[in-house]
């Protein structure tokens, strides 16, 4: 899960996997993805018990909203798996 200077830089990276072409995410979408509501409560004293358990569902909802509801992004098995 990296930041690159551009998509071209990512593709030139020696460890870039061609299967990860769908793994690009624009910075505004990425900051939204990692800035959903639960993330905004990391300083709350009950973050672990109250907020962290909601994170997975929130991430799925956000990924769906930005059109990344694929097994690759959702962490679910690919249909062929």
């Amino acid at each position, binding site marked *: 899960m990296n*930041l690159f200077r551009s998509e071209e830089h990512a593709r030139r990276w020696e460890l870039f996997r061609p299967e990860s072409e769908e793994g690009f*995410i624009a910075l505004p979408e990425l900051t939204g993805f990692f800035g959903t509501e639960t993330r905004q409560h*990391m300083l709350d004293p009950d*973050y672990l018990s109250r907020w962290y358990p909601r994170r997975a569902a929130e991430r799925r909802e956000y990924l769906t909203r930005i059109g990344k509801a694929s097994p690759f992004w959702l962490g679910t098995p690919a249909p062929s798996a």
Partner: protein
Amino acid sequence: MSAPGASTPTPEVLDRMWSRIMRTLIDTGRPPHHAELAHPLGVSVAESRALLRAVLQAYPIGWLHPETDYIASFPPLNGLPTQYRIAVRGEEKWFAQCGFEATSATWLFPGETVRINAACLDCGDPTTVEMRDGRLMRVDPPTVVGHLNYGFGPSRGQPAHL
């Protein structure tokens, strides 16, 4: 702490442990050792070690360095240096777990400009992202992009930089 004779820590004590770890990371740039947390939490060192392991069971996106009790990663921050250096108020003393988590560090420093400095894995040239309270303030170069090399599911167990 757990009730006397009980082996499962309460959610409240796990919350306190989690918050202590994160607060130490924020204040010092490094994760604490569980022995340091024993007195503040009012538990023995052995209980503190057990609590640390319980916290990481509840928060499995963080991890210990293999075969140790040392906190290697406690996202969004990292104990082990990564290429994702975080600077606040001109002080660069934090590391993010990965490029994605780096964009979440802004929520640990409310009201502050948080700068992410990273060397590009392709060319080594600098990549800079500045955020404040979740908003992007500056991106250099403007073409900076996030990339997931393994899908989230299959990526489990892969090195964090992938």
